[in-house]
C-alpha cells in the first residue's frame, strides 16, 4: 500500500504574526517557519501505518518555494521514504493545491492521501475535500482515529454530537484532526538518514495546471487592540458600569 501525505510550510504556530507594511499579507521575512501542525499529524499517522506493516511506501508532497524542501526533510526524518516538491514562488489557493495534488496522485497512484484538516496560515479547511471531489474518491474528514483493513478504512470523526465512525473504500482522502496522534520528534540518526532520501523537484509550470487565484485579497489588517480593563470596587459599581457605560443590562 502506498500513502501520500501533503505537508505545508507555514509560519510557526508560536510566532506572533505581523501584517506587512503594504497591508497585503502576513510578514514572513525572517520569521520562524515550521511544518503545519495538522500535517505533522498526517505524517505521524503515515509513519505509524508504515511501522505496523500496513503501508509499504510513504511519500511526502509539498507545494511551495524551494525552502519547502526543509519541511519535506522533516517529514523524511520522521519516517517518510521520499519527497516531492512542486516548486513555485506564488501562493496557491486550496483549489490550486487540490488540482496539483490530483496530478501527483495520477502519477503516484497512492491508496490513501492523508492531509491536515487545515493549514494554520489561511485556516481554509478545503484542500482535502476538494481533492476528494476532483479525484472522485471517498473522504474521511477530521479523523481522530484511522483503522485500515484491506481495501477499506474506518475513520472516526470528531463531529458536533460526539464521535462518528464511517467506513470508506480505498483509495480515499483522509484529513487529520488534532487528537489523531502525537507526532514524534525527529531524532538525529533519522535526520541524517533523511538527508540521503530523494526529493523530486517539479517546477509548477511543468504540470500545466490553471492555478490562477480565484480570490482577491483586498486588505490585511491587525485586529483592533483590546482596551485595558478596570477594577471595580464592588458589585454596585459593576452593575452601574454594566448599565450605563457598557449598556449591556438595563
Amino acid at each position, binding site marked *: 500500500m502506498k500513502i501520500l501525505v501533503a505537508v505545508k510550510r507555514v509560519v*510557526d*504556530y508560536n*510566532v506572533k504574526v505581523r501584517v506587512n507594511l503594504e497591508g497585503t499579507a502576513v510578514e514572513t521575512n*525572517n520569521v520562524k517557519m515550521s511544518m503545519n501542525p495538522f500535517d505533522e499529524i498526517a505524517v505521524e499517522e503515515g509513519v505509524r501505518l508504515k511501522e505496523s506493516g500496513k503501508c509499504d511506501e510513504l511519500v511526502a508532497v509539498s507545494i511551495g518555494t524551494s525552502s519547502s524542501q526543509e519541511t519535506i526533510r522533516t517529514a523524511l526524518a520522521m519516517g517518510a521514504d521520499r519527497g516531492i516538491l512542486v516548486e513555485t514562488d506564488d501562493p496557491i489557493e486550496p483549489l490550486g493545491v487540490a488540482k496539483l495534488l490530483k496530478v501527483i496522485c495520477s502519477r503516484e497512484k497512492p491508496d490513501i492521501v492523508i492531509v491536515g484538516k487545515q493549514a494554520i496560515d489561511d485556516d481554509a479547511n478545503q484542500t482535502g475535500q476538494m481533492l476528494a471531489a476532483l479525484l472522485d474518491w471517498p473522504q474521511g474528514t477530521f479523523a481522530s482515529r484511522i483503522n485500515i483493513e484491506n481495501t477499506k478504512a474506518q475513520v472516526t470523526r470528531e463531529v458536533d454530537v460526539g464521535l462518528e465512525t464511517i467506513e470508506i473504500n480505498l483509495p480515499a482522502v483522509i484529513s487529520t484532526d488534532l487528537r489523531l496522534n502525537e507526532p514524534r*520528534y*525527529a*531524532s*538525529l540518526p533519522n535526520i*541524517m538518514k533523511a538527508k540521503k532520501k530523494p526529493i523530486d523537484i517539479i517546477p509548477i509550470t511543468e504540470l500545466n495546471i490553471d492555478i490562477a487565484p480565484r480570490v482577491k485579497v483586498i486588505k490585511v489588517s491587525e485586529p483592533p487592540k483590546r482596551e485595558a480593563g478596570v477594577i471595580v470596587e464592588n458589585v454596585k459599581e459593576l452593575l452601574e458600569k454594566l448599565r450605563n457605560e457598557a449598556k449591556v443590562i438595563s
Partner: protein
Amino acid sequence: MTNSAYQKIRNIVGPTGVVEKKLDQEKYLTEWRGYWRGSCDLIVRPNSVDDVSSIVKICNNQSIPITPQSGNTGLVGGGVPSGGIILSLDRMDKILNVNVSNSTLTCESGTILKNVQTAADSVDRIFPLSLASEESCLIGGNLATNAGGVHVVRYGNIRDLVVGLEVVLPNGKIWNGLRSLKKDNTGYDLKHLFIGSEGTLGIITRCILKLFPKPQQISTAFVAAKSIEKIIKLFLKFSKFAGETLSVFEYMNSLSVEIATNSIKGNRYPFSAFYPNFVLVELTSSNQNNELALTMESILSDAIADGTILNAVLAKSIEQRSNFWRIRETIPEAQNFKGASIKNDISVPISNVQKFIEEADQATSQIVPNIRHISFGHIGDGNIHYNLSQPTNMEKNTYLEKRNVLVEKINTIVQKLEGSFSAEHGIGLLKKNELTRYRSNEEVELMKMLKKMLDPSDIMNPGKLL
C-alpha cells in the same frame, strides 16, 4: 525601634510607603516556601534613592537593623528579617533608559527581571539573565546575590552583565557609580564589592545593565548519553566547534527526567528507549543565515559516530523547543511529588564533575539506602543541583533527620574536589556555618574587615552571610 524613628520614616515615605495591614505584611515576613518567618517593627517601601538614603541615615543613627528585600524569591533566607525594618525596593521599578547605541539599560533595582528582558526585547536586544523566578524576582536581588541561571555558560553571572551601579551605603550616603563604560580602570572596581554581598554592605538602588544582540536563530536538542564522562566530552566538543553560539548546556539524570515526564501533565519523554543521562543543548546566533541547525546536526552526528552520545532529538518547531525546555524546568516542581527533598547547589571544576557525582551518589546511598538522586543543572558551569529525594519506603521525618549528615558528606566531597558548597544560591541564613567551615580563616577575616569598615554599626542585613 523608637516611636520617633518610626514616625520620621513614615513621614519620609508617606502613608502609601509603609505596609500596615497585617494581611499585606505576610508576603514580606514569610520566606516564600514557608521555611522561615521573621518579624520586624516596620515594612517600608521607598520610591526614590533619596528616600532610601534618608531612611538609612535614621537607621544608622539609631542602630536600627535593616533587612533589604527584593522579590523575596531567594533560596537561603537572605531576606528574612529579625527586628528593625524591612526596606523593600519593590516600588522602585522604573526602567529609566534603554540605550541601543551603548547596548545598555538603566533601571531602578526594584524592576522585575522579566520587565528588563521585555524592555530589551522591544529594541531587538536581550538581557540574558534567565532563571526560574524571573517573573517575580527583582533585579536588585539578582545583583545582591550575583544570580546565575541557565545562560551563564555563554553570558556569565549577573556580575558579568553590569557596567554601573548606584548604592546607598550603610551611613546613608549615595555612591553613584552609574557609568556606562566598558573600560574604566580607575582604582578599585567598587561595584563588584556590592554584587553578591547579599545586602550586607549597602542597598543597590540603580544599575546599568549590558544588552546583547537578539538571537535570530535558535537550535535546540535533547541529547541522551551513557555517562557523565561522555556528557563532559560532548560539552568540550560543543565548546570547540560552536563555542560562541553555545548558550545552554543543561544536565539531567535519568530520574530527574523520569519524574518530570511522569508527574507533570503535558510533558512527554522525547525518546522511545531508556537512557541514563541527558543534556539540553541550545545554540543561538544573531546571524540570520540558517546554518545553526547544520552546526548542531554535524556536532551531534559526529558525537553519535564516535560513541560520545547515544541518541538526540532536535526541535523542529517552537512548540517542540518549549516541550524540551519544560522537562528541564519542571524538575523542581516534579520533586515535590516525591516526598521530602534535600537540595544542594554545588559547583566543582568541570573536570571534577564526574568524580563528584560518582562519589556523592555512593556516599549518600550508604547513609540512606535507596535514597533517590535527582541531579540536574548547569553542567557547563560545573554547577549541579544535587537534590536528594527520600526513599519511597521511609518516613519523611526519619529522612529529614539525616539532613545534616548528608549535607556535610556532600560538602566534604565538594571541598576535596576544589568546589563550592553554594554555586549560585548564596549564603543567607542557611549556609552561614558552611562559610566559616569551608573557607579559610584569612578569607572569612577579610570579609569581616570589609563588613566592619563599611557598616560599623552592623545595621545592614545583620545575621546574614557572616
